Structure formats: C-alpha cells, structure tokens
C-alpha cells in the first residue's frame, strides 16, 4: 500500500442476500483531504462508509486505516476516528451536556473538551435541553459534536445534513469548514447534495449501484462537462448535478 494515505480501500465488495451493495470499490485518501461520496439512495454509500468505520466487514477486498487493518487494531483505531452514523437516536431523556459527557467518557476525555465542543457546534444555549426536545438540525449538530470530541484524525460522516433546511445545513458547513482550515483532519462525508460536495470537499467520488462512476477534484469533474453536448454559453450554469444526470440518466435526488 502507498505510504502517506490515511485511508486505503482496495477492491472492496459487500452483498446482502440478494443485493450487491458494494461491487469493487478502490479509494485512496490522503492526510487533510476532505472527500465527498455522492450518490442516490441505495447507491452503497452507507455500506462503504461503515466498512471503513469497521462496523461492517467486507466480503472481499481490504481496508487500511493509517496503514492498519481493523482486525487486531480496533482499540487503537477507535481512538483516532470520529464518526456519525446516518441515523442515531441518542438517549432521549439525557441533556445535551450529559450526552457529550457520556461519549467523552468513552475516550477518557473530561469536561473542558466538552465545553469546547459545545461551543464549536454552537449549542451552549441547549446545554440543558433533553435530546428528545431538540430540533432535527440541533440533533445533527449534537451528533457532529460527538464525532469531534476526540479531535479525530479521521472524521467519517454519513449524510450529516440530510433532512435539514438550507440554514441548518449552512451552519453545519460552517463548522466543518472551520475544521478543514485546521488542516489536522481527513474527512469522508456522504451526501445527496451537490452543493454540499462543492462547498466542503476538494475530492469528489460519485457512486451508484455499488460502483464508482467518476472521481476527481471539483475542477476535474467540471472538466467533464466539456464532453457533454451543451453549448459553451450554458457551461457556467452547469453543475455536478447535471454531470450526475449525464452519467446515470437520473437525477441525484431521485
């Protein structure tokens, strides 16, 4: 495997009974890189990310995190990774603060870092609110805060903004952009939203039916447009959404 790669995914496959969720994916993610995995429902995003997170095991292929496999290194890797799952319901009748303290304790982290994170995700006012009483956006911010408690070297976020209104989404983008400026963290995030990939990530992987359709930097991918049958005057209006449609014949949010 290459040195310098934070995450190496090599020819990974995963099937459930009749569904082939992931069909031979390769990925190389470097230090400090922010990568978006873009794809429609059922594309295999969650399955791929959860295999990287060590929550699911691939049927075939190999995954290295910081040069190590999950097998035999789980205790070590868990300390370095932060993640948020596509849907997690935290304990309803704990407050935001208590939830942070609980998860911090798993890493042996104390109060000070919880205060920092609370500030980072702008939830100081909700410190004493029960999780059950939070709005969707606040819950996502709490989940994001929990994923950042241990100052992770690798952050893996599964659809962190799905279902949020544009404002709530932008708040989360702001938090992540700040993290990106820090330069200490590599991130993979899955999303349905073109705009999110454009805003946050310097490398974009488009997948569908468990396979990579295209990958590259934003500019690489926009370059593809030149091959599309559109007039030069329209190029500026074209986004990755159109690219996706031209690749698959479907819209991204279908």
């Amino acid at each position, binding site marked *: 495997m290459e040195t310098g790669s934070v995450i190496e995914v090599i020819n990974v496959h995963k099937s459930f009974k009749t569904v082939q969720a992931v069909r031979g994916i390769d990925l190389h993610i470097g230090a400090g890189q922010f990568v978006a995995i873009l794809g429609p429902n059922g594309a295999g995003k969650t399955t791929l990310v959860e295999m990287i*997170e*060590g929550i699911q095991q691939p049927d075939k292929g190999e995954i290295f995190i910081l040069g190590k496999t999950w097998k035999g290194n789980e205790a070590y890797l*868990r300390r370095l990774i932060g993640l948020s799952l596509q849907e997690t319901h935290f304990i309803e009748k704990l407050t935001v603060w208590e939830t942070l303290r609980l*998860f911090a304790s798993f890493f042996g982290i104390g109060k000070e870092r919880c205060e920092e994170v609370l500030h980072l995700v702008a939830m100081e006012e909700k410190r004493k609110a029960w999780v059950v009483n939070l709005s969707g956006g606040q819950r996502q911010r709490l989940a994001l805060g929990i994923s950042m408690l241990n100052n992770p070297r690798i952050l893996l976020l599964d659809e962190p903004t799905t279902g949020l209104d544009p404002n709530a989404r932008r708040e989360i983008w702001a938090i992540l952009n700040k993290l990106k400026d820090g330069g200490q963290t590599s991130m993979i995030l899955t999303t349905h939203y073109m705009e999110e990939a454009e805003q946050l990530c310097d490398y974009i992987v488009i997948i569908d039916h468990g396979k990579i359709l295209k990958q590259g930097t934003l500019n690489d991918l926009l370059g593809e447009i030149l091959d599309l049958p559109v007039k030069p005057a329209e190029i500026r209006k074209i986004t990755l959404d159109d690219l996706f449609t031209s690749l698959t014949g479907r819209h991204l949010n279908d």
Partner: protein
Amino acid sequence: MIERISNSQLFQLIMANMKELIREPGVLFWGIVFPILMSLGLGVAFTKKKDVITHIAVVGQNHLMPQPTDTSSLLLSFLQTNKASLEKSSQGFISRRLTIPDDKLGNTTFIFQAMDWQKAMVLLKRGNLNIVLDEKHGIIQYHFDPMNPDAQLIYLKLSKMFNASGPVIREANTEINPLTVSGTRYIDFLVPGLIAMGVMMSCMWGVSYAIIERRAKKLLRRMVATPMKRSNFLLALITVRILMNFVEAGLLFLVAWLAFGTTIQGSVAALITLFIAGNLAFAGIAIFLASHTAKTEIGNGLINALSMPMMVLSGIFFSYHNFPEWSISTIQKFPLTMMADGMRSAFIEGAGFAELTMPIIILSAIGVLFFTAGMKVFKWY
C-alpha cells in the same frame, strides 16, 4: 479523584441509565407504585374478615308480619324476640333483617324476605339465594340443595341460631379461633412472590428491552464505535437495575410492614443473598433474550413469552400446588418459582442459609450460564 471517577466510562454509563430511569414517570409508576398498590389491594381484599349478608326466602308473609288471624308463628316470635328490624321495599316486599355480630369471623346478616314459592324458585335458580324457609303446623321447614355447601352452611347457622334458647346472641359452647397469625395470611404469601416477580419484570424490561431498543435506534452501534468497553455498557445496565430493584423491594416490604405487619421471620442475610442471586439469574436471562434482535416488537414478544407463563405458573398469586401433580416438578425448576419459593420460606417459614443455599447457587448459575451464552451470540453492530 472525584474528577477521575466522574470522567470514567462506568460512572457516566451508570448515571445515564439512572437518569433515564428516573426521568421516565411510567417506569416509576409501573416499577414501584403499581406493585405496592397491587399488594395493598389484594392484601386488603383477602386479609380482612368479611361481613356476610345472607338472603333467605320465607314463603308466606305471615311469618314476618304480625297477622290478626294467626299469631302462633314460631319464626315470627323468634324474630320479634331478637328485635329483627322490619323493612318494606318500594315494591311492597316485606323483609326482616337480623345481624349477628362476630369480631372474629365477621358479622353475619340474615335478611328474611317474604315471597311466594314461585318467586323463591326463580331466585334460587339464579343463585340470588340458597335456602327457602317455610313453617307449617309449628315446624320450621328448610328447603335447599344438600350438594350446595353455601346452603349447608346457612342451614347450620340458622338451625344453631334457632336452637339456642332465649336470646340468640350469646357465647356458644364451642370457641372458634380464626387463623390470622402473621405468616398464614394471603398477604404474607403474596409479598415475597410480588418481590420476585418485580425483579423478573424489571430485568426483562430494564435490561432486555433497553438493549433491544438501543440496538434498534442504532445507539448501540454508535457507542460500540468508540473505545467504550462493552462490558461496561452491560455492567451499567445491570447495576442500575439491581439498585432499582432493591429500592422497589424495600418500599414494597415497608408498605406491607406498615399496613399488614408483614415481617421477615428467617435470616435477612440469606434473604438478601437470594435476592441478589435472583437478580443475577434474570439479568443473565435478559441479556440472552436481547442478544440478537434489533426489533422492539420481537423483543416485546420474547419478553412476554418468557415472563407470562412464569407469572401464571410460578405461584405468585396462588399456590402452584393447585396444578396437576405431573407439572409441579417442572414448575419448581422455573427461576421465578425458585426465587419466589425461596423468598417466601425466608419471609414466613424462618428459612436461613441452610435452606436457601441451593436456590442461591442454582439461580446464580442460571445467571452466569445465560450471560455467557448471550455474550457468545451478542450482536453489537
């Protein structure tokens, strides 16, 4: 030091479970208030002596009301001597009421109602009364079904009352000593069983269901995707449950002691050890039940399928010795039976470690066995 403890995984997990528990009013009601209410209700219903009201049909009015033509009725003069009160219902039925006070067995009130034979037969068939009286030529006639024990009892009471010469209410030749010493009442049977059942239900819902729900909500996998020690997760759930069960059992006992004078006649240390062993058994079973499924409906079904039969068969509300002979040795092997029987013998038979060591060992072994089997197949993700 305090900082170290409050930052520790186990402490935070225990606190989280504890807070979740006490912030859920339903849990407190069903876990603590309900069993107490149930024991109070059943205790009062089955422990207090009952006042009995017995209706007796008297064929012919003239035995209840003085008639100008005939004054020779034995029954009437008996009732008059004993000052039986005369009542007339709105429909014109005449009745006389006679109460025989009895501190020990409860008062008995006889209501003699005048009616014709047909009406008496209808009421008899409906079960509204058991005995019909008539008087002809100076002879009291009793009509009742000799196969009916209630009727027999009323007959005995009536005949005794009539035969006693002079005023009816006086010391009889025989003395009745009702068995109401502590330890033989229904409440004394019920409380230890209710405590055992409380432990079972609490473990089933508080450990089993809690795990399944956390798995269903993906909280379990989220927690396991951190350096959290899995053993701490389970230990915290069980610890909080056992604490809660101690509070629950303690309160139930306290109320039974205040309301009914229930006492522990055997070894308290042995009783507590047995209580802990029972907790371990049910916590182990709970973890085994919760080891695989991520569907709360299935969890619900599993819990009910396991706990319902034990609730009915294990002799919580009534003795399992009423069940057929062949089933008893099986019933006695149920963990709930073992715990309830053990608790009961410590409460009311004065049992100590000598009698309880066996159930303590078996219950603990059940706990360890199910826990180990559960961990083997436990689905964390």
